[in-house]
């Protein structure tokens, strides 16, 4: 046996003095560690940039600019206006009269004409007329109107339009901005929270100011109902079978491989499935939340099955043995003992699956939920499922694809609302997990 001392260092060096090689190695160690920190920091920075960007671009969607004006319409004026050929024009005149008086009262002097009013506020006459025709009792009473400014004027406040670059057009003239400034200084033109965006329906392609996400949120809601009431029972039943009852043979092996693959199939493929099975083959209506829900159910099912099986697996076998030991049947042991214990985990997984489905866009493109203009709310429950509607992510995509840049702001605003829903759902899932978490 050879002695190893020949390979030992010739002199004993103190441990307290790092030799050159150790220094080098420690430097490499520090570098390596830094790579990790940098990688995580990049992720964090991106998240910050994304959040900042969403808030900066999306928050303005929640503000709208209105001209506030108190109008008192006498019965005589109403009758006179209604008897004319151009009824809305008559109301416009009434509005301008009131507007003038109001400005004089506040001592604002600014030149304007009827066309300028229309450029700033749209067709005010029509708005006022329809208000009075629906509220005949208010005739003779002072009524405060809040008239929404056109999207170009909003663009001026939100920085999309500015004085240096403005090109006079029939939508907005440079001179109009003087009026806008004067009105704002006088407090006639104010900003307020844009409820219409949160609760409203989509507008046409040329009116970004009036677009709201409310109708498509309802579409999403009905879709989620379908997903919840189909994927939870089916997913749980399938998991119980696979985890508790299925014999271990090649067939169940195949089913398992199939499920884990299905979870990784691109979502667009589920859209193709929905298009050809539900719409082409079963003739279900296009753009209907029912169809969207069915497609998303098939898409979420693997996710829910995987998480449910994990929850079932985490219930220790001793619980099953205990139940079987006192003479319960296998079915009873599962439904009376295992399932209740696994329920918190199952619910958490389901909520996370739903959140995923809520944000999913690609399959909805193919079943016609994009491109459909959600101008109306559904009439009732059946109509909620069956009538064409949009869904939140599809609505956001629709807006992003429109030409008018005013819609971008709406798209970001829609993302804020979508993310709030997702945050709430995930918070609920975390809450459930924390509250019912059980360690065996």
């Amino acid at each position, binding site marked *: 046996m050879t002695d190893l001392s020949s390979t030992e260092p010739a002199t004993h060096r103190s441990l307290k003095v790092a030799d050159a090689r150790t220094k080098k*190695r*420690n430097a*490499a*160690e520090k570098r*390596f*560690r830094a*790579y*990790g920190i940098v*990688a*995580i920091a990049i*992720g964090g920075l*991106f*998240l910050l940039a*994304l959040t900042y*960007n*969403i808030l900066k671009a999306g928050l303005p969607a929640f503000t709208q600019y209105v001209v506030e004006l108190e109008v008192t319409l006498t019965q005589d004026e109403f009758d006179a206006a209604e008897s004319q050929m151009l009824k809305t024009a008559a109301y416009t005149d009434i509005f301008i009269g009131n507007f003038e008086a109001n400005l004089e009262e506040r001592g604002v002097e600014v030149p304007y004409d009827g066309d300028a009013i229309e450029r700033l506020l749209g067709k005010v006459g029509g708005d006022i007329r329809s208000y009075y025709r629906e509220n005949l009792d208010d005739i003779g009473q002072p009524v405060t109107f809040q008239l929404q400014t056109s999207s170009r004027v909003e663009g001026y406040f939100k920085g999309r339009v500015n004085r240096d670059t403005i090109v006079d057009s029939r939508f907005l003239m440079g001179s109009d901005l003087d009026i806008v400034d004067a009105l704002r200084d006088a407090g006639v033109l104010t900003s307020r929270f844009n409820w219409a965006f949160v609760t409203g329906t989509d507008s046409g392609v040329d009116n970004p100011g009036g677009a709201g996400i409310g109708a498509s949120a309802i579409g999403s809601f009905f879709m989620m109902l379908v997903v919840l009431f189909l994927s939870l029972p*089916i*997913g*749980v*039943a*399938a998991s*119980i*079978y696979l985890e508790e009852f*299925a014999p271990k043979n090649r067939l169940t092996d195949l*089913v398992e*491989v*199939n*499920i884990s*693959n*299905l979870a*990784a*199939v*691109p*979502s*667009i*493929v*589920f859209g*193709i*499935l929905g*298009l*050809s*099975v539900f719409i082409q*083959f*079963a*003739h279900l209506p296009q753009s209907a939340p029912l169809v969207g829900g069915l497609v998303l159910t*098939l898409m979420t*099912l693997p996710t829910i099955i995987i998480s449910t099986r994990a929850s079932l697996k985490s219930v220790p076998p001793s619980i099953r043995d205990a139940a079987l030991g006192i003479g319960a049947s296998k*079915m009873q042991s599962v439904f009376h003992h295992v399932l209740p214990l696994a329920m918190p985990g199952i619910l958490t997984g389901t909520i996370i699956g739903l*959140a995923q489905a809520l*944000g999913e*866009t*690609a399959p909805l*493109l*193919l079943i016609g939920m*994009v491109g459909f203009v959600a101008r109306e709310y559904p009439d009732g429950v059946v109509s909620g499922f069956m009538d064409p509607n949009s869904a939140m*992510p599809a609505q956001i*995509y629709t807006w992003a694809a429109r030409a008018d840049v005013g819609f971008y702001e709406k798209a*970001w605003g829609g993302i804020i609302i*979508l993310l709030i829903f*997702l945050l709430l759902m995930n918070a609920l899932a975390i809450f459930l997990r924390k509250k019912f978490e059980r360690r065996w």
Partner: protein
Amino acid sequence: MSLIFIVSIVIALAAIGYVLGVRRAVSSADGDQRILHSLKGYYGQNVALTVLVPSMLVLAIWAIAQPLLIDQSVSGLLDLEEGRAQSLAMADVRRVAEGLDTAIAQGALTADAAANMDADTTDVRDLLGDIGVAIGSDVTAETLNAAQRYRGLSNTGSWARGFVVLAIALAGFAFALSRITKDFRARNIVERGVLVLLIAAASVAVLTTIGIVLSLIFNTINFLQAYPAADFFFGTRWEPSFSGRGGSSELGFLPLIWGTMFISVISLIVAVPLGLFSAIYLSEYASPRVRSIAKPMLEILAGIPTIVYGLFALLTVGPLLVSAFGQGGFFGVDWMSGGTAAMTAGLVMGIMLIPFVSSLSDDIINAVPQAMRDGSYGLGATQSETIRQVIMPAALPGIVGAILLAASRAIGETMIVVLGAGAAASLSLSPFEAMTTVTAKIVSQLTGDGEFNSPETMVAFALGMTLFVITLCLNVFALYIVRKYREQYD
């Protein structure tokens, strides 16, 4: 008989059956529940299940079969010599039939008037247009005839459906009730029934796969009959004609798969190092506190819907890249002319994949036994030496699996490329040019105005098929590797 009506009757019957079943069981034991074979609830459940399951099954089969049979019977009436596709003609027939029903429901027509309508004397298109049902072309006598036949058959079918389903439900009701005696093994029967339901639920996942495969295969075959397969798979130009029916389209697959691969590679170049280093840092270095912050942060990135990433690519990253690499940009290189480019989509997709790579790798690194680390530290290795020379080689198969799964994600990702990559198919080598992908073209071909049976639309199914096959192979392979890897350390 409407669907809701039938379903509610059957459910009511099941509920009554439950109550009666329980009562009958208890009385058969002379009120002494202890001598029953099963708990009394099982007798009720048995009746309820016997009522519900067969009748609902028949209802479901009927719902699928009836439209098929009616279509077949009605389409015989249509003269298809004009060369119109049968599915389009049938769609018209269906719409006319539904329109007539709507008209009757709204009171615009009496049932008699609708049944005796004559296409030569009435302008059916106008009439239906008035009540909000738009028909694409004038309604011919033949179409109207077919529509009347369709209505008749549907009507008969729906009554027959009601009777058959209710009859089955009632029969189940009577049968199950009659079987109840105190020795009847209700629990065993119920449990067997429940097991069948569980198996049915498990087979939904299999049916989904079968559905995907069938819908892709049939439509792909249709496409390949209208368009030569060689031109599709080996064509280097993607130029669908916009008229929808023109024969001049070039539907070459190569530029699309090139764009897909190009963008996926860019995204993996971003995601793999960042994700891997994040995972290494989180599993090997981070203190519990840092981990408790950084891990959820990465999970948030994973939870953001892809539409958000898409919008971010389109509206923020694209313009930013142009201001850096575009004309008069920061680097003054003029490489990039528009915001939508392979780079834009690739970068954003890379960020999206970071949490995907990191959480999978994190699991895999954690599966490497602590004994390996101890062995290495015991020899005086530093942490980074241990990670690079012991843990990484040990975890390599698992990590390769994770990267393949990420690649499959990247290939199948839709929204980011639809919004961020551009629309022009190109075989370019420059990452700063607009490119398009398989998924983006599936969307554009299926949401366009083209007729459904034209090659320009059907090509989407062929694209879907190739996408499905590619991702399936990647997934199966990757999942196999990861599974083998885990077994090694279990």
